[in-house]
């Protein structure tokens, strides 16, 4: 009979198909060492990982169209204010396709920390960014201490503790 064969074939196809996107994402293994980067900043400057060696860096990937990013900026500003004098630097990497969109966002939300622009997403690719927003806490030696996706105010306190620990020595 035709139907059982079609049904079996279709179910098999569905199972195989559903597993492929999962397989693709399994390739994004956790990072150990933060990749090097050199990106344009505001005002014509350059923000490079080399010049950040010896600092505790919080790399945050954001975009103007990402709601949770909007909510995370005041917290990032607060972190920078508290730990900045202990060798801590927030680097907010923007992934908007056009500078205008990023500028419009920055005009509304103060960003008293380093802002770098990565419109091609190459640095995001190197960091294996899997969701928006994504953040990476990088130690003074360039090793990734921990990474997060999304912004949850409840987790913010825990992250801040890690930042304090990393800045301790």
């Amino acid at each position, binding site marked *: 009979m035709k139907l059982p064969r079609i049904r079996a074939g279709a179910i098999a196809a569905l199972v195989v198909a559903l597993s492929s*996107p999962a397989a693709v*994402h399994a390739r994004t293994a956790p990072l150990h060492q933060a990749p090097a980067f050199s990106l344009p900043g505001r005002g014509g400057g350059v923000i490079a990982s080399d010049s950040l060696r010896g600092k505790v860096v919080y790399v945050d990937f954001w975009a*103007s*169209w*990402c*709601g*949770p990013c909007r909510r995370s900026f005041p917290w990032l500003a607060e972190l920078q204010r508290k730990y900045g004098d202990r060798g801590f630097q927030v680097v907010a990497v923007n992934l908007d*396709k*056009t500078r205008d*969109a990023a500028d419009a966002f920055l005009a509304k939300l103060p960003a008293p920390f380093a802002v770098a622009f990565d419109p091609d997403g190459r640095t995001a690719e190197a960091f294996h960014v*899997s*969701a928006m927003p994504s953040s990476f806490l990088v130690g003074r030696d360039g090793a990734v201490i921990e990474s997060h996706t999304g912004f949850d105010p409840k987790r913010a306190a825990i992250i801040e503790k890690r930042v304090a620990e990393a800045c301790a020595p």
Partner: protein
Amino acid sequence: MQLDRRSPLRARLGAAACVLLASAPAAPAAADTSTDPAPGASATQLELSGLVYGEKGRTDVLEPTVRVTRLFANGQSLTAEAGFDAMTGASPTGGVASLRTQTTTSASGQSTSIPASQVPTAMFRDQRESFDLGWSVPVGPFTATTGGHFSHEKDYRSLGANAVVTLDLLQKSVQLTGGAGMNRDRVDPVGGAVRGLTPGDPLGTAPDPKRVTSMLAGISRVMSRRWLAGVSATREVERGYLTEPYKVLDVLDPATLETAQQLREKRPELRTRTSVLASSTWHFGDAGGDVGYLNYRWYTDDWGVRSNTVDLKWRHDLDDRHWIQPHVRGYSQRQADFFRYYLVQGEPLPAFASSDERLGPLRTVTVGATYGFQVPNLPGEWSVRAEYLHQWGPGKLTRPQAAVAGGDDDGGDAANGGTVDLMPAVHIGSLLVSYSIGF
């Protein structure tokens, strides 16, 4: 022709149509992350709308609705909706157009004179109230939504419940949906139920309630940066009294092809429907560019009705706060197996028969546009949609010339040399105004 009836079962709105997903609350997810001037991550959303609908020479409907959605801190949401329908006008009885002027009388004593070669209709007035409730709970990557529905008309009552589960995968790149629903409708025809395919013999008992079970499965997928696509399938099974209690079928005299007798229609007690919908949304250009929405639906059921629907909408942003969205829809339907324009005296009676245009071979073309705007200094968003529907079908009846010439009591009014349209074109206009605000 005298017809002892009141309001017809013009539309069993709220029956199967509302069972699945329709009453599920809008998922709050997307609103959070938009670049559009959205109501914001509001805790409460209020939507008011009003529909004004008119069929030329037939029905007029006024339908205000109000919907409130409340989003809680834990991610759960509750939606409540209330609607009111006021319907008046003339509805086709199912009879064929005559060459002479006809008169129909409603149960309230109101007479309508139907000019020659026009499809006979009868006046009615009705109102309907409906209430929908939906509750949505996020559980990890799943979202479970349950809903309930109640609506009430003079001679009709509908109760329904549904549950839908969605699963988001890969940061909402892929979304799987599964759902099921049940509806129980009770009809209590004015004057009591009548036996089908008889002139009006009473059924003797109350008609069986109409029970509908529905199932839905679907998948939607982000295909690329600018392309979103989805496919869904629905299966519905209806059981019980599915006949329209007031619709009639003309039995024509084989010689003159004029109506000799009228019988009430009769439909089977079981109907299984299947539909498949393929949807695609495409974003042209960059931020601020146009978006095209294309849908195709294929439908079939075991009554023999088969249809194809194509729907295209085109959204164009005029600026941050104004947009227009023209719309065109084409629909083509093949008739039900037991659809008959009329029966002929002397021929054996079929098991089932109906001359309800909705089961006939018909085409509908819709053309319209929506205009969305925000009033400066006034919170909230408005949209106004105007549409024109044109519905028609084939089917002509040509009567022998002898019948045309004869005079009669009604003061004979022959037209078109003896040919009448059995499914004349219907012209419909509708205006939908909506206002949405978040707190």
